[in-house]
C-alpha cells in the first residue's frame, strides 16, 4: 500500500520534472519509477515513521515559524561577518532534547543547524551538543522555544 503511494508520488514528481507527455518518454518514466520503488523496498526504507511525521497538520506552521527565526538569525550573523569590529564569542554546550521519537530529535537538530549562528555537533537520544557563534544564540537554544514547538508538533495525532 505504501509502495503504491510512493510510486504515485514519484510519478507525479517525474511528470513535473519532465514536462513531456509522449508515449515513449512516459514509458521511460514508468520504468524508472518502478526501479526506484524496487530499490527502496530492497533497502527497506519505506516505513511509517517519516510518513506519519510529514502528515502532521501542525508541521507547516512550525516551518513558517522556523523560516522567521532563520531570517532573523541570518541578518545577525551576516552583520557579524561583514561589519568591521564586530565580535564573535563562540561556545559549545549540551542542550537537552526532550522529543520522544528519533524523527523529532533529528528535526530539532536540523532546525538548530539550519538557523545560522548555531550548529548541532553531536546528537544522542536526549541531548545535543551545540556550537553557538554568540552567547545570545546559545541563550536562544537553551530557552527551548524551538524544542517545545517540535514537542507540540510531535504530540498530535
Amino acid at each position: 500500500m505504501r509502495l503504491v503511494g510512493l510510486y504515485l508520488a514519484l510519478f507525479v514528481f517525474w511528470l513535473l520534472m519532465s514536462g513531456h507527455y509522449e508515449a515513449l518518454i512516459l514509458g521511460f518514466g514508468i520504468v524508472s519509477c518502478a526501479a526506484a520503488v524496487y530499490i527502496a523496498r530492497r533497502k527497506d526504507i519505506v516505513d511509517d515513521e517519516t510518513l506519519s511525521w510529514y502528515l502532521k497538520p501542525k508541521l507547516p506552521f512550525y516551518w513558517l515559524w522556523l523560516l522567521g527565526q532563520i531570517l532573523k538569525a541570518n541578518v545577525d550573523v551576516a552583520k557579524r561577518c561583514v561589519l568591521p569590529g564586530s565580535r564573535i564569542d563562540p561556545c559549545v554546550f549540551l542542550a537537552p532534547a526532550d522529543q520522544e521519537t528519533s524523527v523529532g530529535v533529528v528535526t530539532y537538530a536540523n532546525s538548530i543547524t539550519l538557523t545560522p549562528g548555531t550548529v548541532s555537533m553531536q546528537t544522542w537520544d536526549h541531548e545535543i551538543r551545540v556550537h553557538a557563534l554568540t552567547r545570545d544564540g546559545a541563550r536562544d537554544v537553551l530557552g527551548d522555544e524551538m524544542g517545545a514547538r517540535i514537542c507540540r508538533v510531535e504530540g498530535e495525532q
Partner: protein
Amino acid sequence: MMFAAAMAGVLAAMALTLVRALLGPTVFDRVLALNTFGTVTVLAIAVLGFLMGRPQFLDIALLYALINFVGTIAILKYLQYGDLGASGESPDAGESGR
C-alpha cells in the same frame, strides 16, 4: 539587469569560498568550502538560466544540488572511516556527552 546584480553577488561569494578552499588550513575547512561552493554554484546556474533566458538550466541546478550533497557526504565518510563501504555505525553511538 537585476539578474546581473544577483550574479555579481553570487560570483563574489564563489570567489571567496574558493579562496577559503585553497587556504585550508585543515581538510575540513576545504570540504566545508567545497560544499558551500557547490551551493553557490547551484544558485549561479539558476540565475544564469534566467540571465540567458533558458530556464531549462534549472534541471542542471537541481541535479548539481543532489550531486554536491552526495559528494560531500562521500568525502566525509571516506575521511572518517577510510572506506566508502563502511556500515556507517558511529563509534560513539549510545554514550552521552557528559
